């Protein structure tokens, strides 16, 4: 029996003892096929999932390698059923291949006729197919390349896509590394993507995903469409690209609610793409307006469903997904896998933090006692109003005030869900508020002031969750959230995780009301953050007032 760092559990989780001398080596070995589920301080948990195993197959690993790795590092005997399951699952990938045939066009080829027979009989697949060529081959309607990949994945027979990509219209793009240097992991990520063809790169917020995108564009050297979550993010992409690449202002267009520019590199928002006019998507032409050589999806985990549908139609173009987490609240991870592509690169937050690229963060939960009146109001509130009721209690205000006062020298962000609560806080704290209705112009001015240090404290609504760049926020205070959603948490933490010039640690406070559902949601948050390896503390509001922290 070896004394390895890994324990393979019968429920397909892998426990990695990170204090073990072989743990780094083992992590590298299992990362390609196992999904990191949580990474608290001593034992990291990975999980074997079909998608993870298929990701590994796509990256060129076979079942034997996976099994050898498990056996090699395992401390105890690996349950036989798991080995069988791994082999079985992995053998399902690649039995079907999509290829481009010079005569017949797009074809589905199999190495196992039984599988082909099974899938062509499936109700969802049959309409996507054309004529049968021989026992192992059948034509696929060229327009259904994405659809068939989706349907096959649902049947459990993911197809490998060898049908290739169009080069797109060439356009010279280079990285200009004058006063900065691309980080090794960013380069690896871009290369991993390029060799894989299409796929997703998973990097924590603040780890420089924009640069990975720029590096991918430099690989493609072709016209590029970039899809981002909102206008602010679009502008930031533009600024970054101008700074990091050989592109000039005339080459980059913005396609948003405000502007409709189509240039060799076009940055479009999800919002405008999914806008409907008279019941039809009005801006779909954008996908065809240029012979795009690369399409970049920022924040893949937020990709709205209609975009998936368009993506299904453009399977012959290279696609790069960028995200901090593959977890989707709507469970559409399979869609990301089949339509954008398998995971091509990922690295846990802690590892990048250890390399000094992002700031270490500390999470502190502050529990507030409700007053008698507030408790009564909470107890009698209608169920649908309960969260709002306890998340916006008056008592939280004092705590926030005390916290802001305590961090008077730091850049502080106060984040919340409910506008009236934020309005009030903004007034009390004397800090400007950015909310949905704040004009983009004004937003940018405020962000700039915050960046330069002219403003020390900013109150933001959920608009700040996505893709804004606040380089020097060291403190975030969350007063209310979207029911403890995991991805929101990642976003908010990402706000303060950008590397700080002086190497100071960041702090993430969440203020919650004791003994209410606010506290239940906070438990999800605690779990998520602790699973990500952040230090987590729970304190009472009194500790804040008494200056104990």
């Amino acid at each position, binding site marked *: 029996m070896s004394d390895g760092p890994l324990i393979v559990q019968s429920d397909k989780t892998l426990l990695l003892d990170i204090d073990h001398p072989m743990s780094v080596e083992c992590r590298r070995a299992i990362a390609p096929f196992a999904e990191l589920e*949580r990474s608290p301080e*001593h034992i990291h948990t990975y999980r074997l999932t079909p998608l993870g195993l298929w990701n590994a197959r796509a990256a060129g690993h076979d079942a034997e390698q996976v099994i050898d790795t498990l056996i090699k590092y395992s401390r105890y005997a690996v349950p036989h059923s798991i080995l069988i399951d791994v082999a079985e699952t992995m053998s399902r990938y690649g039995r079907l291949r999509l290829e481009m045939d010079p005569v017949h066009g797009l074809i589905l080829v199999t190495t196992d006729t039984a599988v082909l027979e099974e899938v062509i009989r499936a109700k969802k697949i049959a309409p996507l197919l054309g004529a049968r060529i021989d026992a192992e081959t059948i034509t696929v309607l060229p327009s259904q390349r994405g659809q068939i990949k989706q349907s096959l994945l649902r049947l459990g027979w993911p197809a490998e896509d060898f049908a290739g990509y169009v080069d797109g219209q060439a356009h010279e793009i280079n990285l200009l590394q004058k006063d900065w240097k691309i980080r090794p992991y960013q380069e690896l990520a871009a290369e991993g993507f390029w060799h894989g063809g299409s796929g997703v790169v998973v990097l924590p917020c603040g780890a420089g995903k924009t640069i990975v995108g720029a590096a991918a564009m430099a690989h493609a050297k072709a016209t590029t469409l970039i899809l981002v979550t909102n206008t602010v993010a679009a502008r930031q992409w533009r600024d970054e690209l101008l700074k990091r690449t050989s592109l000039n202002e005339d080459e980059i267009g913005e396609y948003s609610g405000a502007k409709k520019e189509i240039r060799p590199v076009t940055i479009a928002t999800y919002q405008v793409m999914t806008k409907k006019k008279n019941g039809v998507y009005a801006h779909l032409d954008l996908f065809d307006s240029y012979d795009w050589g690369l399409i970049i999806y920022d924040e893949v985990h937020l990709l709205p469903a209609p975009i998936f549908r368009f993506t299904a139609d453009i399977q012959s173009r290279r696609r790069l997904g960028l995200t901090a987490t593959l977890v989707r609240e709507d469970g559409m991870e399979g869609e990301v896998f089949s339509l954008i592509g398998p995971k091509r690169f990922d690295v846990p937050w802690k590892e990048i933090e250890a390399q000094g690229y992002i700031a270490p963060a500390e999470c502190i*939960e502050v529990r507030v006692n409700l007053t008698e009146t507030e408790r009564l109001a909470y107890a009698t509130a209608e169920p649908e109003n309960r969260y709002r009721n306890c998340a916006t209690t008056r008592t939280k205000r004092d705590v926030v005030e005390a916290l802001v006062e305590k961090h008077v020298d730091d850049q502080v962000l106060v984040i919340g869900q409910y506008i009236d609560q934020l309005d009030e806080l903004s007034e009390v704290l004397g800090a400007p508020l950015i909310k949905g209705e704040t004009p983009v112009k004004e937003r940018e001015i405020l962000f700039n002031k915050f960046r330069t240090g002219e403003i020390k404290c900013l109150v933001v609504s959920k608009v700040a969750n996505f893709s804004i760049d606040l380089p020097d926020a060291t403190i975030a205070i969350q007063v209310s959230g979207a029911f403890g959603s995991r991805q929101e948490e990642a976003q908010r933490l990402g706000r303060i995780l950008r590397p700080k010039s002086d190497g100071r640690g960041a702090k993430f406070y969440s203020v919650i009301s004791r003994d209410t559902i606010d506290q239940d949601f906070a438990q999800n948050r605690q779990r998520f953050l602790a699973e990500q390896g952040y230090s987590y503390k729970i304190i009472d509001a009194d500790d804040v007032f008494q200056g104990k922290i």
Partner: protein
Amino acid sequence: MEMRSFSDYLRSVDDAAFLNLFNARPDLITPVPSDIASLAVRACSAPSLARAIDSLNQWQFQVLEAAASINEPFTEKEVVALTEKEAKAALSHLVMIGLIYPSDDGMRLPTQLREVIGAEPAGLGPASMAKLKLSELKDAPADAQKVLERLMWGPPRGSVGDIKNPGPGVAWLLEKKFLVPLDQRTVILTREVAIQLRGGKIHKERFVNQPKLSGNKRDERQVNLAAIANVSTVLRWVEELLNFWADEPADALRAGGLGVRDLKVVSAHLGVDESCTAFIAELAYLASLVSIDGDERILPSSKFDIWLMQSPADRWQMLASQWLITSRVSGLVGRVDAKNVAALGPELDRVNAARVRALTLDLLRENPGIAPEWNSFKELLLWRAPVRRNSSLQEELAEWTLREAEWLGITGQGAISKFGLEFLNGDDLNSINEDLPKTVDHILIQSDNTAIAPGPLEHEISQALAMMAEIESRGGATVYRFTEATIRRALDHGKTGDEIKTFLAKRSKTPMPQPLEYLIADVAKKHGKLRVGNTSSFIRCEDTALISQIMNDKKLELLSLRRIAPEVVICDMDATDAMRVLREAGYLPAGESANGMILTGPKSNRSVAKPRPPRIIGEIETPTPEVISAAIRVLRTGEKSTHRQSKLRQVASEALGQLPRTTANETMEILNQFIIDEKTLSIGYADNNGGVTHRIIDPIRISAGALIARDHATGEVQSFRIPRITGVAPL
């Protein structure tokens, strides 16, 4: 001495032969028969013969079929001619176990053997009565050829539209007597013709040699590693299952056994599928670790506590040894076609379960280092135990055995493990204790409120942890999660917050994370804020002075009052009695309804139970004319038939005189003899009422404990239960 019958043969053999015979057929001496004659009768009885046939492999059975298709007496040479030269060895085995016996004029079969094998052994029809010119078969017209091809490999019967007007092919064959008419619509191919067509052999293919088992080669070390993982898993399963039932006993179904819902609950708890759960439950049941108490609750027994104290090897041995011999089949639970079969229920016994299990394990043992491929295994199984009596489920039983052997760790990665071999050989199982991973005495607590035991935990620690945390993942290690609910559970079990903290701090190798400490303190603080108890009545009063007065009133001591709030007192007596006592002591209480209304006026009591008036027992109702006339008709018919029968009996007894009397063994011997000779007999036969009547019969055959014979009195073929035959005598 003349040697013709089986008993004659038995009288002639030596002790060694008996030894072999009894070894192969232990049923012959349970109980030990009184003499050779009764031994012979038992050995020739259908159940015993069937049992003996079950022990044959496919080749031996083929030889027996061949022997059964020749007229008696026959010679070894004849059998060899119809099969292969290897038949000699098989024949001597058949003689050894008494399925064939030598007599003066050649070999014979025990009388009932053909009955047991079936009327058409190897799909062959009856021997022809006429002399056949087999050489003419070559010249059969095309139509006849077609018919022959259809019938030659059996079944030998074929139906025709009308026997009087058959097609040309059938007509030709009937004319040549190759086909014999059975009834109006059926013809049968005679045995000689079929054998001729089969090329002088009985079987198309003769399976002389045991097929080779194919499968995946396994490395011995890996097999043992996998097996020990299985061993530790199965021990953990049983322990967890019983701990679960100790907390929340399952309710047994009215028909007995574990309900589907409870099975699902347990299966979710263990994290295994339902068939595996059923297996674990049965395993615990067989080892008497679980019992069903008087209240129909399924609970761990006191033996479970003893079991827990034993070494892993002993614990495993206890489970495996019971599993090996049981007739219960947990694989039957929850099958699609038999939904209602419950684990721990009464419907799981199958007579052939242990036999198939033993055979399956034998085959595994004969092929070490191989994880059998199922089709090959099935083929081998079929050769070793060709499907015959009680063959139902044989394949499934073998499949389940393979599955269960893997769960138990008798196999690892599908091939037999060293523990399995040691167990089946009855050796010492110490290697299990040595090979199991060493227990650990610590856990690692992390700030996401989980604790991880990086190996099997010592018993006490795992018990304590199971109380204060939820198990989230199982395997070599165990992952526990602390939540508000689990901490509360520990508090409910009487632990204090500090005790929990101390225990965790002592057992954890890593420092206690602050959030967990906070969680424990927080729950402990809130625990027990609300108090709940039982009481019969309450007394309340806004005047606290009056409450204090009744609390201190000596006359009210029998009410055993308890003050739970300044204005509320509770009492164990019910409200009416409490009021009476208070009134007697001079107070002026008033009753209060559930919604706080004062109850005034005399209270007239009403029963809450539904009224159930007593049943009227009286005269029988007058029947309707229809009922009466129907009853009369029945009576008249019955009377007529009795009258006719007694008349027949009278005739018979006049013809016969005295009732014959023979012992049971004599009866069987004479009957067997007369069946062969086809002679008429007189018998005494007890009817349903115990009256013995005299019958004259032509015996035809013995089948299923009954004599099939033609009764001369009625002229019909009738069956006579053997035990009711009081005696037989030749006429």
